[in-house]
């Protein structure tokens, strides 16, 4: 069984956020929730200033604190080393959210995609409303991606948590996660950590790397190489 991991080359990363936007697109992620996200910071004093950008996502930790914290087994490790979540088991207790040191698990406080149920029209009878648009399509919202529902709730309902699944639905079909596919600068590499010949291992052998929260004891599987 593979042990999936991701390497992000910060030298190649252009800090554009296409990963985070494409993720929303692929996984039907509602407003305010970010399976893929980024951290940025500006250091130094003018004119010696450094701006850094680090794309983030669920680290699919080998020692995942969120899995340990889940009382009902909704948050679990799968056979490929991914940290996955089963919304049908989830009781919405948010123990995983509390245990997660990376802030990548989100709780659906509201009905998701409320925008598409709203009745307001900008200009009456001239422009549409989210609700009217929604009615025209047989899916939760017009650009809804049905592929997501192959392995997870297509849209996660109010009352449960959600997070990055490393696009397990795509992996199953031999594709790479959509953030990897969509990265315009080719900064993301996905592969099997247990395969010595995988591209991720080649990069990890070639460059020194760091992971977020190395000292948490979580053994994250998202690796960063080089500098932004």
């Amino acid at each position: 069984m593979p042990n999936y991991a991701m390497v992000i080359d910060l030298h190649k990363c252009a800090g554009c956020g296409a990963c985070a936007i494409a993720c929303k697109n692929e996984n039907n992620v509602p407003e305010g929730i970010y399976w893929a996200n980024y951290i940025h910071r500006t250091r130094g004093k003018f004119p010696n200033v450094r701006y850094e950008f680090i794309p983030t996502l669920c680290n699919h930790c080998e020692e995942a604190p969120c899995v340990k914290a889940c009382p009902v087994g909704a948050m679990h490790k799968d056979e490929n080393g991914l940290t996955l979540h089963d919304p049908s088991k989830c009781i919405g207790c948010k123990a995983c959210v509390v245990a997660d040191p990376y802030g990548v698990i989100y709780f659906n406080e509201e009905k998701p995609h409320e925008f598409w149920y709203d009745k307001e029209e900008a200009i009456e009878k001239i422009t549409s409303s989210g609700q009217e648009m929604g009615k025209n399509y047989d899916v939760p919202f017009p650009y809804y991606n049905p592929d997501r529902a192959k392995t997870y709730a297509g849209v996660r309902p109010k009352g449960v948590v959600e997070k990055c699944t490393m696009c397990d639905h795509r992996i199953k079909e031999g594709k790479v996660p959509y953030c990897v596919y969509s990265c315009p600068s080719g900064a993301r590499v996905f592969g099997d950590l247990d395969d010595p010949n995988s591209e991720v291992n080649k990069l990890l052998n070639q460059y020194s790397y760091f992971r977020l929260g190395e000292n948490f004891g979580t053994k994250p599987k998202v690796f960063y190489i080089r500098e932004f």
Partner: protein
Amino acid sequence: MKLSRRSFIKASVATGVIAAGAGGTKPMLQALAENSGKENKQVSEGEWRPTVCQGCTTWCAVQVKVVNGRAVKVRGNPHSKANNHDGKVCPRAHLSLQQVYDPDRIKTPMKRTNPKKGRNEDPQFVPITWDEAIDEIAEKFLELRKNNEPHKFVLMRGRYTYLREILYGAFPKLIGSPNSISHSALCAEAEKFGSYYTEHYWGYRDYDLRNTRYVILWGADPLASNRQVPHAMNVWGEVMDRAKVAVIDPRLSVTAAKADEWLPVIPGEDGALATAMAHVILTEGLWNKSFVGDFVDGVNRFKQGETVDPETFQENLTYGLVRWWNLELKDRTPQWAEQKAGIPAEQIIRVAREFAEAAPKAISWLSPGTSMQVRGGYAAMAAHALNGLVGSVDNVGGTIRSAKYPTQAIPSVEPFMDDIAKAGNKHHKVDQRGYKEFPALKKGKSGKGVVTNRLADAILDEDPYEVKMAIGYWNNFTFSCAGASRWEKALEKLPFFVHITTHPSEMAMFADIVLPAAHHLYERLGYIESKANTISYIAMNQRVIEPVWDVRIDETEIPWMIAEKLAEKGFTNVLDYFKSIKDPETGKTPTNSWEFSEYVLKTMTQPIWDPAIKTEGDQFSGWEEFKKVGIWNSEPYKFRNKWKDFGTKTGKFEFYSETLKAALEHHAEKHNTNVDDIMKVTKYQARGELAFVPHYEEPFRWGDEKEYPFIFVEHRSRLNREARSANCQWYQEFKDVDPGDERWDDVAKINPVDAGKLGLKTGDKIRLKSPTGEIECTAKVWEGVRPGTIVKCYGQGHWAYGRIAAKDFKKRMPRGGNNNELLPADYERLSGSTVRHGGVTRVKVEKL
């Protein structure tokens, strides 16, 4: 309760129905089921269909994934050899999904019922049918023609495809108006001025990034904006492995953040840096001897402050080097430039040296940032002249042009123009181009360029004449033109205005009739020409989904409908002309607007897809195959072809521009004056021969330093789809991918030193005031901006583009403030370009 995946799906369909009527908070599983019931019906592979993304001027060939008739995703077209390697696109393309499916789109033609126009007037729009709308428009045309004043009609074009040849090219001529006014001067004409008056190229350059060893970016931020964005992002890691990158920009752009050198120039002082770099290259003997030539005896006489005898230098492929040195460069030392530009002399020397040492695989990359200043034309020339000095022009690893685009023209309108039309077309174009103070010297000719932003003044002052009717398409001048409030006044005055747009907009709010436009990426036909990575390409906009609403194609369908209506009312010329464009395959005459659109497209692109016509580049078996692939790629660029003859007056790369001299002298003669006077009225400082060489000019700024202590700097967003994406949730949610910016907000970035003096902290609400306008936004204290400057991204501040873009659409409350309400309407007059960069205005900051 435990459910297997299968039973879970089953249960969801069942309980979905039951849950439908339930109010209040639903139990978790029921809620889950409700959603799932809807979502699982449509799992299907879908199909990737080719089209074009025109979210910026890169113009990427893309594909849309269509599942059961819905657009679900966008990616680069894998057939592209230029911009979209392996299907890559920049973040903008994804945002387009939230444009096409935006509930705030205009879904029907509408008519204003409140005759009073103004930002605070409710237009009281009511829906009308297409027939009613077109009928009213046709009547207005007939009225103008009846009164022999068809030239009082203006067609305003914003973004476009090459099917512009119908609405922008043929249609106004057939009606009788010369007034096809493009947006081009808002875009970057001043930049083209730089390459034209050195190497005779009026266009955007391509760059051989894969082979380059040094890149100087003059205000350009190719990882975020400018052209060829996905290509730049794709190769930038390699570029930085192999080459050095120096970024000249007062703000820390993302490209600057990743660069080897950041030169945070005092806004508008770029010319000092460019001339000083040229000075270093010459005094240190680093110019390209085989391209430029050398001293006859090989002894370098370029010494600071000393003039050189032209006889001692033998020039090769360039012209006027010694005169440039004597007139301008000899005193332009790095130490002098340090005082002007605020960049250490040693850094200027280092960049100049390393650039020249890497040459000819070196790029000096122009952008609006350097040139769109009142006195920016010569800075653009100076920056581009560096490419001439090091022989990187038209060379491997350098700055190049495009291959030929094998398209063909549509038939001439001439035989279809009646006497009224012919007389109308004889009038001077209404935008004041070619006036003494607006030379607009496109391609060497006085008044050939457009002065887009001047149209507002022309309308207001009725100079050269009154405008009675206008159609605007794919534009939003009330938002996108500096001095935006003048446009509100001009549109208030305009008696009849038709706006063709996908969304409500700042311009539509002043319209008498608004027509809903087909979205360019999803719903229309068209084609574009663009280039990157040494490849030129032609890609087609195609209808990949059924239109979301009852929309029409702006450039072809709407003029067809007007033509039909005009014919019905007795004026058949326009329709007769349109019907003369047949299907090149079958010879059929178009019978409706869609067929017409398709035949125009097929005609113009015929040399590409018709195997009977021999062309270079990708080959196709016929129209159907071209449609399916969606893009034609040229052969790779052939370097050094221009070296034989650049096309300038001297055939050489001109450091002393005989081409510009001829253009300026002709313009002066036209106005019975001399070039010095033209320099004066165009606000330039140069007198005498300095006007013909790239040289330093002090930046022109609005506002007194005492009253307005900060220099205002504006920049582009990597999420701007040309200021049309602010109504997309993802735009707002990810606005902080522009360094220093904040999500869901519009910030003015200020250095901590200045913020300290003003007692400002991040999050404070502030008002920015220039001598001509004011806006409100949020303060952001950030080290990535030069002290003494206020830096703000363009794109927010919409008050009429939809409910997300505005803070409160109904109350006309913008989210932040539009920079163009702050910027004065001023120009780089030699090119006609509107100005917005180079610190064209000073501002003051008030805490609210």
